[in-house]
């Protein structure tokens, strides 16, 4: 077994522990207590006592915390305050939709961004470069949720694509038709960002000696760009992936709302509006866990493709 696996596991456990603890204490710091927040300021003391009992809020904080951590260790996130169903089940039901959306958005952002970045770097300081740079700065300033709204108005309503919902993977055609616009909305902003970073890295490499030598040998400009400039720049670009994924999961909250798409984001926002604190708590913990797992997987991939990265 590779040496870094235990380290990554420790990181996962620690992060989930810290996030879960922060959310646990945050919820209990709500002015007036969660029960009052849930039921409203003029709720009867009987109702408040009932909610408190359901949440185990009368017990000393330390006992509550111990029970909470014990539950968490067995993989349980408690029951929803509103529907009384297990939080884990509700989250697992929608998690695939969010993951699918984030991965599709990331693919669009990475591929589009690298293409645009290489293109603008190849035409450095000429018209296509300026157009590409203005384009990427403009796109970078569009919030993804606004792009989502514009896509609904400009594309979905005209072409007849669905503007809401999501389908399971077992129905690929329907799934794709409901995935494409949300994924584009997420991916377009990413494209702009990746393009800027790619252009910067490419320009740095293009000034290096080995590129001049390659050109002097008469290698075609296309091959110089791809083989001699993009390849060395590809690792730092790829390492953006982890950071990018965090942003995508955050933006997915908004995009899922725009497209009324079931997912972790809509689940979380609905739970917040309904003051379903156990659901909110569970969703945030799952988000943190997913992000740590994905970042750890990416780190393993970097190690595999770049032998220079060694365990400290």
């Amino acid at each position: 077994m590779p040496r870094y696996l235990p380290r990554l596991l420790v990181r996962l456990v620690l992060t989930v522990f810290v996030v879960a603890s922060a959310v646990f204490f945050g919820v209990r710091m709500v002015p007036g207590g969660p029960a009052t927040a849930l039921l409203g300021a003029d709720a009867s003391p009987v109702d408040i006592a009932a909610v408190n009992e359901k949440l185990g809020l009368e017990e000393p904080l330390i006992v509550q915390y111990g029970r909470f951590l014990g539950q968490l260790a067995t993989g349980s996130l408690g029951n929803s305050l509103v529907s009384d169903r297990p939080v884990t089940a509700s989250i697992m039901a929608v998690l695939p939709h969010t993951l699918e959306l984030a991965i599709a958005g990331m693919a669009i952002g990475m591929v589009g961004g690298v293409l645009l970045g290489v293109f603008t770097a190849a035409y450095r300081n000429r018209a296509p470069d300026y157009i590409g740079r203005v384009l990427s700065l403009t796109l970078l300033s569009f919030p993804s949720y606004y792009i989502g709204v514009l896509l609904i108005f400009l594309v979905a309503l005209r072409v007849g694509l669905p503007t809401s919902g999501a389908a399971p993977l077992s129905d690929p055609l329907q799934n794709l038709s409901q995935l494409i616009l949300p994924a584009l909305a997420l991916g377009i902003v990413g494209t702009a960002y990746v393009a800027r970073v790619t252009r910067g890295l490419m320009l740095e490499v293009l000034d290096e000696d080995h590129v001049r030598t390659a050109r002097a040998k008469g290698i075609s400009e296309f091959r110089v760009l791809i083989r001699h400039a993009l390849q060395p720049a590809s690792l730092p670009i790829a390492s953006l992936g982890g950071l990018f994924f965090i942003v995508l999961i955050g933006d997915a909250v908004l995009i899922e709302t725009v497209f009324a798409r079931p997912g972790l984001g809509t689940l979380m926002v609905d739970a917040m509006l309904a003051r379903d604190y156990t659901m909110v708590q569970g969703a945030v913990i799952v988000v943190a866990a997913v992000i740590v797992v994905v970042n750890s997987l990416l780190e393993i991939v970097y190690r595999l493709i770049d032998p220079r990265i060694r365990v400290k």
Partner: protein
Amino acid sequence: MTTIESHPSRTPTRRRSVARAARKYCGSPMAVAGYCILLILVVVALMPGQLAPYDPHAQNVARALEGPSGEHLLGLDQYGRDILSRLMHGARVSLAVGLLAVSMALVVGIPLGIAAGYFGGWVETAIMWVVDVMLSIPGIILALLFVALFGSGVVNMSIAIAIGFVPTFARLSHSPTLSYRQREFVQGSIAFGGRSLWVMRRHIWPNLRSQMLIIGCLTAGTTIRIEAGLSFLGLGVAPPTATWGGMLRDGMLYLQSVPLYSIVAGLAIFSAIVAFNLIGDGLRDILDPRTPERPVG
């Protein structure tokens, strides 16, 4: 740090003096556009009452969702309120929250980062570990959580958004501090008995200042994006106060009949973000071209 580096991507050609001045003081002609947009937004946000043609809360349900006319340039919303007036009043919340959030994140994050890099040891381990954990949660989700728990006024929203950017600024000020810590001028100052706080303030902070200004400016665009996002989700400043995000969401319901409603609300958000992006890029060109790419979040 303050010397202007000649930018390799710029060929010196004869330009008119206006363009030269723009480049010298703003970074690029595009940055001038950024300053102009920001100036307009700030003026509107400071005195929407004087500039807006109508009361943003005055309803006229009989004429709800009426299209643009000479009387109401951008039309009326679902309650018959003047959309242009509401947009102008909405500038106030977005700019206030956006700028307040960045300022708070800078004021808390930079000292943490400098302290971590300067003291090293367990201080560094503790601070950077918390920073790493916080960076593994998207800023908008932290903000959502805070607002859901503690409510959403202008101040609460600013704190909520700022929390997500404290680790960003701590991280960004930490690594340069590490290298300055080893440099002769810092070592010398410590050898002469300079107190830690004094060394950090007089020798380390001035070297970070310009980069932090640039990144702070670029981040202001992001905090405005998140503020509008929270309002869009219905977790922002409560109605009937006009917010750009809230208007974008309300307009979505009428996307087929009155598309202009959503589109102008989104353009308002875009204008504020693009202004800060243009200014930030301009500052980068004048102050420090090596500043890292804007933080995302």
